[in-house]
């Protein structure tokens, strides 16, 4: 016959008393869980930097999908056969490529109102260097709603 507390838990799904479990090997066998220190809570600056990287990555993915869609529509309008898709966004390779592309993005700093230059080809980035990036800058941090939309549940 099992320990009463264990038997009751298995029979009815009632909680096992912690004080009893501390002195009962069989209950301890059921309850034992690894103990580990939690990872450190990031600083506010690290949180913001992470959020910004996610914004850029999302923007890169969205823009790439738009480009694929535009290309497909253009091909369809021109009567050309639709091009073979190189990949779908669910494929890790494409996500990696897009993540790498995001590395070519300039983020000014962590201050509020900073400008994020998203989706720049390295060559474009060089062209824009003299123009301070005005034409292609997205002031993402100015809009909490946009941030929330981009950082919402369905993140990659």
């Amino acid at each position, binding site marked *: 016959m099992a320990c009463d507390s264990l038997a009751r838990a298995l029979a009815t799904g009632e*909680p096992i008393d912690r004080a009893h479990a501390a002195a009962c090997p069989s*209950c301890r066998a059921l309850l034992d869980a690894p103990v580990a220190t*939690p990872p450190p809570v990031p600083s506010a600056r690290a949180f913001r930097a992470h*959020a910004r990287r996610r914004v850029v990555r999302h923007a890169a993915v969205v823009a790439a999908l738009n480009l694929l869609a535009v290309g497909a529509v253009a091909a369809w309008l021109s009567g050309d056969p639709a091009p073979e898709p190189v990949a779908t966004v669910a494929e890790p390779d494409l996500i990696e490529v897009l993540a790498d592309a995001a590395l070519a993005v300039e983020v000014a700093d962590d201050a509020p109102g900073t400008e994020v230059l998203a989706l720049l080809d390295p060559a474009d980035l060089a062209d824009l260097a003299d123009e301070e990036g005005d034409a292609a800058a997205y002031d993402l941090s100015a809009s909490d709603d946009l941030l929330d939309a981009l950082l919402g549940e369905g993140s990659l």
Partner: protein
Amino acid sequence: MNPVAIPAAEPRALEEAAFLAALEASAPAAMALACRLLRDPEDAREVLQEAWLRAWRHRGELRDADAVRGWLRAIVVRECWRALRWRGLRRWLGFGGDPEAGLELPDPGPSPERANADAQLALRARAAVARLPARQRLVWTLRVEEGWTLPEIAAATDLSVETVKTHLARATAAVRAGAGDPHGL
């Protein structure tokens, strides 16, 4: 002169520093919960890191530092549920080991024969818990091992109390069957 109605002031969101301090203070309990739900420190660590980010993104919803602990607890539960579903998918696809595979018997104590039989039963039960579907496992662990009330579980999992009861009943039946002690139970 008509009195001018002054609208009640909106409660302000937590200051960043207070929010981060509250997260820091809640971290050990959140980690212990994740370790219990996942039984794997590395998975628990990943869940905590994701929980930090989710908490940061939604910090504007909080008005009270005292509420951070319970709020973070609910986030951890949902992230653990997500992790358990991924673990189930990986297992189904044949990837990844089972963190419950290396279970060992505890010290049997003064009456080794009886205690050893009990501990064997407990370990079989624990292995059965590890095989439960993610949601049933979550509900069972929170109820039986963590001692949460049914409404607390319902609130943290976005389920109704009735649904929680159903999952608990199914989980209990499966664990009992997995433990396989028809004489003792």
